């Protein structure tokens, strides 16, 4: 919550209404500190922030080039929740639910996916699902371990294993629309998170490091 308050103060100082400036998001899963690949920040116990975005850390297994989202290592069949309120923008439910492989163009690589458009014109994308639960209409955000279900995680489209690809993209889903890093803070190029609230938790991929991880509270 403190982080969201800081963001609000920052927006207020520069004259931007937080609610209109940015829709903030909850963890689109029940609260489990899953491995994250790409676009995350971590802090060693010394408190030094480390960024996994192919700038701070050279090529390795923690992130990859050209990737526009955050991959949560959610097992096959994990319920996926809406990260913020909005309206269903696009869906695809015709790829093989567990038929993912790298280079599979089904759903343009997203596989089975849901995209929700938010008040700030940002689109949240939930990709590589095994099934989609929402196809149209407005979507609420519910805080807590549950939430508003949008689908179930899987391994569809261009994917080598079960996970959830979560992405924030501006305006639409075309190749030219810019994707935004949801992780702000001192290791980021942006000063605020697109997560409504977050905490430092132990990083499953990097023993001794804590990772910046969202919680399940919705923006009011």
């Amino acid at each position: 919550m403190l982080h969201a308050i800081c963001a609000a103060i920052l927006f207020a100082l520069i004259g931007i209404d937080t609610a209109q400036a940015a829709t903030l998001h909850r963890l689109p899963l029940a609260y489990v500190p899953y491995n994250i690949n790409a676009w995350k920040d971590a802090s060693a116990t010394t408190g030094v922030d480390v960024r996994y975005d192919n700038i701070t850390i050279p090529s390795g297994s923690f992130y990859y080039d050209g990737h526009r989202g955050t991959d949560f290592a959610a097992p096959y069949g994990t319920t996926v929740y809406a990260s913020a309120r909005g309206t269903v923008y696009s869906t695809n439910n015709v790829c093989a639910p567990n038929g993912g492989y790298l280079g599979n163009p089904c759903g343009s690589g997203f596989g089975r996916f849901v995209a929700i458009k938010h008040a700030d014109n940002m689109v949240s994308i939930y990709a590589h699902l095994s099934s989609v639960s929402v196809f149209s209409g407005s979507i609420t955000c519910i805080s807590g371990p549950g939430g508003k279900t949008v689908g179930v995680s899987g391994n569809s489209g261009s994917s080598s294993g079960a996970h959830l690809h979560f992405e924030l993209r501006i305006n639409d889903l075309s190749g030219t629309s810019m994707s935004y890093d949801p992780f702000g803070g001192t290791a980021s190029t942006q000063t605020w998170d697109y997560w409504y609230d977050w905490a430092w938790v132990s990083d499953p991929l990097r023993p001794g490091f804590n990772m910046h991880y969202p919680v399940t509270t919705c923006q009011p």
Partner: protein
Amino acid sequence: MSTHGWAQAIPPESIALSTYDQGAPTIAIPFFREGTLFLSHVKKPMEGATTTTEVSRRIIADNVYRLADVNRQTGEYLYQTIEGTNRESVANVTTWLGDASGKVTRVYTGGGYVKLSPGGSYITATDENGMLRIIDLKGEERAVLGKATYAIFSPDGTRLAFLNAIPYSIGDAGGISIIAIASGKTLMTYKPDGAEYIPLAFSEDGNVLYFAAINTAALQNSDPSNQNRVDLYSLLVSEGAVPQLVTTGIQKLPYMDYTRVEYLSGSRLLALSAEDTTWVVNTQTGSVQTFPKVIDVLRVGTGNTLLARSSDESVSSKIWSVLTAR
């Protein structure tokens, strides 16, 4: 007519007789299950037979990510291994070539959707940045075809079809292109309006391309219980040709993407496998036969006799059976 980025000339391949036609009493068939690649030697079923026998089975490799392609002509196959925890990166994916004796060699690291040419001389692969390449078996690049994926060779190895696609981009795909491999000359490009589509296979003579498509309107506001919404089309390889609907009426398919696609030589049957089901489409009549618990088929003999692999783990000692398609 444009040509693509050819680094070196790509000479025509000689296409071998299929392993079935070479007179051996058994057929070597690779298959993948739960991270392990196996090689089965299966007795050729007699014409009209309803059963067959698996003569031997051996493990070719463990920790395999995917059996990517099988060349029924040469008996060779491509499989891939992957390192690291990334689920969307091809940077750490290595492609290996195996033959019917079980010998394997490393071909290439860093490529996604890979296909082996009919003569077994080249592979196609899409790299980390979505660039489609033709690579020889020494790993040397022969051509770069731009942002594309899902390449498929014609059976005579002279043509290549692929999907011009920007990864993770919806609404601005560039259509299906078909090129002459030797020259890089574009033979045709087809882009349906308001549809998602994936090229699947060429006909035996290479003059017809089959592709799956769904009208994007059908993706929105759709009844999730109605899963079968994908149509199969045929497209003559000729600039300006209009696709013909193969799966007419209610005969639709559930998925766009298939783990195995086989145009069954000589039969005009197209077999599409996904999850634990195989659909066999008669490209002449448009009929679709569904074979539950069958995850791989190949045609044997001269009729519509199919050798099928069962997904049923409980009968693992008898995973091969014989089916007849219509």
